[in-house]
């Protein structure tokens, strides 16, 4: 990609950008260390602790719009009771997993929308997202547990999810006394297909990155009845009408208020359990003096600066 010098607006600062395609992110990281690569937009999680020591200040962290959650199947009678959902959520020590497995690269999430959009509130989840194993166990037992005392947790094996899924399963086993099985599905495409068909009997990992910067994009596609990414098959007429009213709101302040009300309904019904948000964690070479990454996790080409 070459700079257009005739461009009338603010010109890019670098002359040319070469995009290098890597088959393996670890190779890219080694190239970054050796100075063959100027920007690696995502440092592989296996290299995070190495990156901290070898890159130092050249390892950067900025917020992104990506959030992660666990989808609870509304179509599976085992998870019908709200107490079961709350208990599962309270039995997970999110901060411990973030510290131990993600090396602090993720941030605890206590809401259903990313903090980067207007109208986001830091904690709409409250006690449900706070780690409380004693209360979790009590509620779980009082609600009668799950059939067979077994929970499956589905994830796609072609992404780096195995470690944290196993950690979550261990926590559910230790804190609720259930047998939790990490259940890999070979590819992401396969998992999406089964998720859309609503055939998975158990929890499933989920993630969302916004398509446009609005609180609405975290609600309509994921929770509206029949929406394309409504994996839980969540259907609540009150939620749908609250959304519809917010869509029609005259001012943006009213709209945001409406969407916040809609989020509160989700917080009561728990079709998904918030887990964490992902930051852009990228590395830059010694030659780079300025690199920005946007909320879509893309490198901003116009503000790049090189010595």
């Amino acid at each position: 990609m070459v700079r257009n010098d005739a461009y009338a607006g603010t010109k890019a600062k670098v002359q040319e950008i070469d995009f290098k395609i890597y088959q393996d992110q670890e190779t890219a990281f080694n190239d970054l260390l050796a100075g063959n690569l100027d920007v690696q937009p995502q440092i592989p999680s296996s290299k995070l602790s190495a990156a901290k020591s070898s890159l130092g200040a050249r390892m950067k962290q900025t917020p992104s719009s990506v959030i992660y959650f666990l989808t609870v199947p509304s179509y599976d009678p085992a998870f019908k009771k709200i107490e079961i959902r709350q208990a599962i959520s309270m039995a997970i020590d999110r901060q411990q997993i973030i510290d131990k497995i993600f090396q602090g690269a993720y941030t605890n999430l206590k809401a259903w929308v990313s903090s980067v959009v207007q109208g986001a509130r830091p904690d709409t989840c409250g006690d449900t997202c706070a780690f409380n194993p004693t209360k979790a166990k009590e509620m779980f037992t009082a609600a009668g547990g799950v059939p067979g005392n077994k929970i499956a947790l589905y994830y796609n094996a072609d992404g780096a999810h195995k470690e944290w899924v196993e950690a979550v399963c261990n926590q559910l086993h230790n804190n609720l006394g259930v047998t939790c099985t990490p259940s890999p599905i070979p590819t992401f495409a396969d998992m999406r297909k089964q998720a859309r068909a609503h055939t998975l009997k158990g929890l499933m990992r989920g993630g969302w990155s916004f398509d446009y910067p609005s609180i609405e994009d975290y609600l309509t596609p994921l929770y509206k009845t029949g929406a394309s990414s409504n994996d839980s098959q969540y259907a609540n007429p009150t939620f749908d009408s609250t959304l519809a009213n917010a869509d029609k709101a005259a001012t943006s302040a009213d709209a945001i208020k409406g969407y916040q009300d809609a989020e509160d309904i989700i917080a009561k019904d728990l079709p998904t359990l918030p887990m964490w948000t992902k930051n852009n964690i990228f590395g830059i070479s010694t030659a780079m003096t300025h690199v920005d990454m946007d909320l879509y996790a893309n490198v901003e080409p116009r503000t790049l600066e090189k010595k």
Partner: protein
Amino acid sequence: MFRYVVRRLLQMILVFFGTTFIVYWMMFLGSSDPIQALVGEKPVSESVRAQLTEQYHLDEPFIVRYLIYMSNLLRGDFGTQLNGRSIADILAQAWPYTIRLAVLAMIFVIVFGLTGGIIAGLRQGGVFDNTTLALTLLVIGIPTFVTGYLAQYIFGVKLGVSAWISPKPEDGLWGYVLPALILGALSLATAIRLTRTSVGENLRADYVRTAHSKGLARRRVIGVHLMRNSLIPVITFLGVEMGNLMGGAIVTERIFNIPGVGFQLFNGIRLQDGPTVVAIVSILVVIYLLVNLVVDILYAVLDPRIRYS
């Protein structure tokens, strides 16, 4: 000899059809929804789906698809991937990288493997022999992806040979030296051990003693009498290895980011793209068969007792 070669070539046609059929069939069984695999997580519109299904005969039964594919292949048409790229173009771009890597690895195997093996075999029990035995055992024991990443980190990052992390076009052959060594390491170690054993055995054979006792120079005994007989098993091994090096490049190419056939094969399997996988595998099979034919003919050159009729 001529009749032998013709018979072998005719056999190759059968093997070629057999392997393409099996690979195509396996890809067919393994693919759930290639259109979905192409677009990833996004939903596909019905019209796009219908168009692709029609264009690539995705709704036809297996045998019809295989016959359409083979009839195109025999006319020299490799077809296109689901994303519209011509498979012939992709292969024409990828093969030179893999061939360069595999041939360089083969040169290392032949040069270092044979010399090392001969020296170790002639002085069995010596320091060189014991050291190579220990080292080759180590190399055989450690998988390629471990030695690959380790060598990449030590040479590329720590010692600063930047061409050895991911070779760029301007690095030329130099960039391929380390990847080729890693790719060839296992074959190299096996070649050394095989040559060593073979040389050691023949050294004690009657005909070598006879050659010595009739007063031939040591150089002629070793260089001509011993070598010719010792190399027969090694040549067989090298012939098979040439095919393995091409196919085995998939791991090495990934580690060193070389955009060769291994990368395309990996992508083809991931995207459930039968035609690409079959095209690559068929070419690998043809190379394998041809190399084996050459090896069989070489036998006759090395050992005049072997005759083909």
